């Protein structure tokens, strides 16, 4: 590596770390998702009282998502081990229930940009009462990948097929 290459590499690192800014709070995440390339907002209503939805989030979030996952991929020329820790947070008030899912790569992936405490935000689900028997869900979620996690959160909201997602998928 000559001087030019070193200089270019340093410039790229500085440029990337300055250019890629990750949301540092759930509120920043909500604001960033509508304009993000790889994320979207999904809104729907479920026929369940708000208290039940909030209760399911409180129950299933920590049980299913507070995990450290190790995946191993192997090809003829490479062997990759990725260790990821997921952190769920559930906040409930009389008018709103929030589920935040963060992740942090412990091994196998290099992070670019400042990582919030607890890890990068992956998904935020907001539940709010519409009527006695209906609840509105605003799901701020990735538009590519993590389909199993997204489906699990939808199921928790609807109270159907309540289970834990296989986060290795």
């Amino acid at each position, binding site marked *: 590596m000559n001087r030019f290459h070193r200089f270019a590499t340093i410039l790229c690192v500085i440029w990337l770390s300055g250019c890629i800014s990750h949301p540092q709070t759930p509120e920043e995440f909500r604001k960033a998702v509508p304009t993000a390339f790889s994320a979207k907002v999904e809104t729907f209503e479920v026929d369940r009282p708000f208290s039940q939805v909030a*209760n*399911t989030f409180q129950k299933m979030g920590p049980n299913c998502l507070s995990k450290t996952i190790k995946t191993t991929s192997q090809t003829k020329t490479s062997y990759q081990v990725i260790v990821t820790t997921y952190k769920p947070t559930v906040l409930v008030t009389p008018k709103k229930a929030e589920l935040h899912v963060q992740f942090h790569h412990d091994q196998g992936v290099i992070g670019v940009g400042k990582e919030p405490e607890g890890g990068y935000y992956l998904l935020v689900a907001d539940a709010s009462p519409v009527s006695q028997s209906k609840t509105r869900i605003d799901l701020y979620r990735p538009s590519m990948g993590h389909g199993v996690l997204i489906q699990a959160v939808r199921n928790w909201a609807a109270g159907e097929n309540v289970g834990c997602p*296989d986060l290795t*998928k």
Partner: protein
Amino acid sequence: MKHRRTWICLTCLWTAAFLVGCSGLKTYENTPDNNLHVRTAADSGSWFSSVRAAVDIHRVTVDCKTEYEGTVQLNRPRIDVGIPSNRWSRLVFVFDSYSFWANRSGSMNYETLLKPRPGYQYEVKVTYKDDMYNVVVRETHPSSSVSREIEHKDLRACPLKSIEGSRVSSNSSPVDSLLSDT
């Protein structure tokens, strides 16, 4: 030629024994009363992937330390296991998945604490379908068919004195029990 075959067989057996020993897994030794009845339905849902379920059983000490006691492979639809009564055990249900297409493997754990009562029977329903898994433990009274779901507890609930009183939801489904908390 015959000696060569014998030599190859012995080498294979030795290698297999070495690998089993090195994996750190040991077969769980049941207690005489088979009080835990595990029903397993695990399906990866694809020709190009597989999923295997097992349960690791740990003893939980009073100071919340765990001691690994062995593993039961959940490779049959129903398996009976004997867990010591009047003592906390940590059951770690492990789902190992493998994708042949991507040559990718991963492992998911679901753990819960259980303190079986003498004479009671425990039904565990373990399911893995459409990349979702679920573990439900129910306790049945020895002299009746009434059962209740055992609330999920993990080591974060330690010290164990704080989790002695578990919630009761008779004859309720997992979803019902979730809803009953409201």
